[in-house]
């Protein structure tokens, strides 16, 4: 449903019951004040000569006023509108007695009708009075019958009230009053007022009274909504255009209202989407580059391995003994490839950032043991002694186990790959009293020059030189190590070892053991 239609319907749905409620309230107030006026005027009339006349001829005494229309119903108001001057309340006090149309004669004695004004600023309604004695019996045969409600009401409160509608729609209002004297045929007086069906007191007020304000209100709402709907339409178009252009086009609706706020929210969402798209594109580009670079890295040792295997097969066919150097080299290539593939996984996770990195308690003792176990089979044939020393109890740190293991593996593998024959690689893990650990990988290989050491620590791992297999290149290895250490907030140092090779040291905080 359109916004305008919905708002118009809502306004109607709210206004109509509200108007009816107001009319009901107005009716109820009008009845009550009419009652008061009738009571007051009847008492005043009975006290100023009415009692005497009634008691003189109770069989015939009654007062019947001529039905008199309020002035606005007869001739309309000067301003042309029809309806009572709402809100004006007549002054209190006994109604003023105007000239009676028929004079104070029995049967045509005017109640305070002519000139007497009701509390709502209109003339008093036509009222008939009938006398009753203490047993609620009237000597006047024209008097209407009293029901129990009226009798009960007058006994309890001094006034009995009954209202009912006649068949022709006229509203009858009966008030039974106790007079301020005891005994006699006029102890009670019934005041009856009959409001004709067409009177504004009965039923709904005319459409002209409530229809016009409602119509004005609706028109005002629809007109006021115009600019709002227009702004919303413009915003919708702009958002559509923006999404159609891949969020390149900005949303320009401005101002200080809620629609402008919505536009600003769209603008923020657009910026967020753009940032994510840019990040995604950058990652995809990185992964493409990475894949291209690393495919080369894996293919090279695979080619070498194929060459070695082909050479071995030739030797076997020729019945020659297998050369252990060739076998060793093939094993080394296979090992290197495994390490590269692990590094690819590590690099991909490092590139993906924090969500991919899982931090959990890691036992460095077990980690060192696994790393050494993995490299022992390749170190032993090269006659490189692989040693380790760890504390007697588990050394717990918090980190990503796979990445940490890969980092230590890379350093150890470098030590083996570039170590000399009959050389050594040792992993020493120690803890300090300051709740930190110190893990050192030392070797007695050729080492790295100072210039190269600082370059390794500065370089990001995707440099071309980083992918060469030469000792100064270190493969992906040390760069991944560097990134992993950074990610964990550890410290890493490269220094010449006291045995002439390289010493790579990691330091970081310990963590309490898991339960």
């Amino acid at each position, binding site marked *: 449903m359109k916004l305008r239609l919905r708002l118009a319907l809502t306004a109607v749905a709210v206004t109509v019951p509200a108007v009816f409620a107001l009319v009901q309230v107005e009716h109820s107030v009008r009845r009550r004040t009419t009652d008061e006026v009738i009571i007051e005027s009847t008492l005043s009339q009975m006290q100023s000569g009415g009692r005497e006349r009634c008691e003189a001829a109770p069989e015939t005494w009654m007062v019947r006023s001529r039905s008199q229309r309020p002035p606005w119903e007869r001739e309309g108001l000067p301003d042309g509108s029809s309806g009572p001057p709402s809100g004006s309340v007549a002054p209190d006090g006994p109604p003023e007695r105007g000239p009676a149309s028929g004079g104070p004669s029995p049967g045509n004695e005017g109640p305070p009708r002519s000139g007497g004004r009701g509390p709502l600023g209109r003339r008093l309604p036509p009222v008939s009075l009938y006398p009753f004695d203490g047993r609620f019996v009237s000597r006047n045969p024209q008097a209407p019958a009293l029901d129990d409600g009226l009798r009960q009401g007058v006994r309890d409160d001094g006034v009995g009230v009954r209202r009912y509608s006649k068949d022709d729609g006229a509203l009858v209002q009966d008030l039974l009053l106790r007079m301020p004297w005891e005994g006699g045929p006029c102890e009670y007086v019934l005041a009856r007022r009959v409001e004709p069906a067409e009177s504004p007191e009965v039923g709904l007020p005319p459409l002209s009274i409530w229809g016009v304000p409602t119509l004005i209100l609706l028109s005002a709402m629809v007109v006021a909504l115009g600019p709002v709907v227009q702004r919303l339409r413009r915003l919708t178009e702009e958002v559509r255009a923006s999404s159609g252009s891949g969020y390149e086009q900005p949303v320009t609706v401005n101002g200080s209202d809620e629609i402008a706020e919505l536009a600003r929210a769209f603008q923020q969402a657009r910026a967020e989407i753009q940032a994510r798209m840019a990040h995604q594109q950058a990652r995809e580009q990185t992964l493409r580059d990475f894949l291209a670079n690393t495919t080369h890295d894996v293919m090279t040792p695979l080619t070498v391995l194929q060459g070695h295997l082909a050479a071995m097969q030739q030797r076997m066919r020729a019945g020659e003994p297998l050369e252990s150097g060739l076998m060793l080299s093939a094993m080394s290539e296979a090992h290197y490839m495994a390490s590269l593939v*692990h590094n690819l996984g590590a690099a991909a996770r490092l590139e993906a950032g924090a969500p991919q990195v899982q931090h959990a308690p890691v036992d460095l003792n077990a980690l060192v043991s696994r790393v050494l176990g993995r490299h022992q*089979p390749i170190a032993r044939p090269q006659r490189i002694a692989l040693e380790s020393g760890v504390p007697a109890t588990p050394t717990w740190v918090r980190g990503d186990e796979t990445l940490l293991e890969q980092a230590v593996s890379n350093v150890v593998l470098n030590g083996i790959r570039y170590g000399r024959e009959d050389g050594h690689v040792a992993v*020493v893990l120690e803890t300090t009293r300051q709740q930190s650990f110190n893990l050192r990988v030392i070797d007695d290989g050729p080492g790295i020059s100072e210039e190269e050491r600082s370059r390794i620590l500065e370089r990001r791992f995707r440099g071309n030189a980083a992918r060469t297999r030469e000792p100064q290149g270190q493969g992906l290895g040390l760069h991944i190590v560097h990134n992993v250490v950074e990610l964990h907030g550890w410290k890493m140092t490269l220094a010449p070892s006291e045995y002439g090779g390289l010493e790579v040291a990691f330091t970081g905080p310990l963590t309490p053991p898991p339960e």
Partner: protein
Amino acid sequence: MGDRILLVEDDDPLGSQIVGHLRGAGFEPVWWREGRLLVSGELPDVSLVVLDLMLPGTYGLDMLKALRTFSEVPVLILSARNDTLDKVRALKLGADDYMTKPFWPEELVERVRARLRRPTLQKEQAVVEVGPLRIDLQGHTVQVRSRPVELTRVEFELLAALARRPQEAVTRQWLVEHVLDPEREGTERTLDVHVSRLRRKLGPVKCVETVWGVGYRLVPGEDA
């Protein structure tokens, strides 16, 4: 025959390779080619389980979870996946160790041996015998081939520190901090002097081995 080991591995070439290597190392392997959700009583009498994760039938970790409800047998996980989440989950579910593929057969055998050896190492023994060496940690006496050897306090503490973790390298720094008097002679050079004296007193048996770059280790030793 040595310990029985249950291998759960669906890949035929890899499985037969592992079986061959375990048998070559003196173990008695039992090979299952698919995972099963075991209940109590269905596990054969084995000392260790080598469990692949990607299995037909039942996922390895589910099998481990079911196994742990009734058995404490050591489990070594084999996985091609090098994902930390898998590892952490496996260890939480009660795995004792894991290996990522590819691995060298020698490494697997070493890991199996280490796992089977672990429980005996955890016991603190009053008397440690390593080769011809007998060290009474409570009585503070040392014998080489039943011949008592007189040691100074530092020398005994040094030997006892190594004897508590036989076959394992103990770092020089640890020994300096825990054996030497830190105020008087707490340097690695002093430690080396004590070690050389200790070796002399233990005679021709080469029990205290220097571990390159690390420190010292107590080994069964050989006669010079």
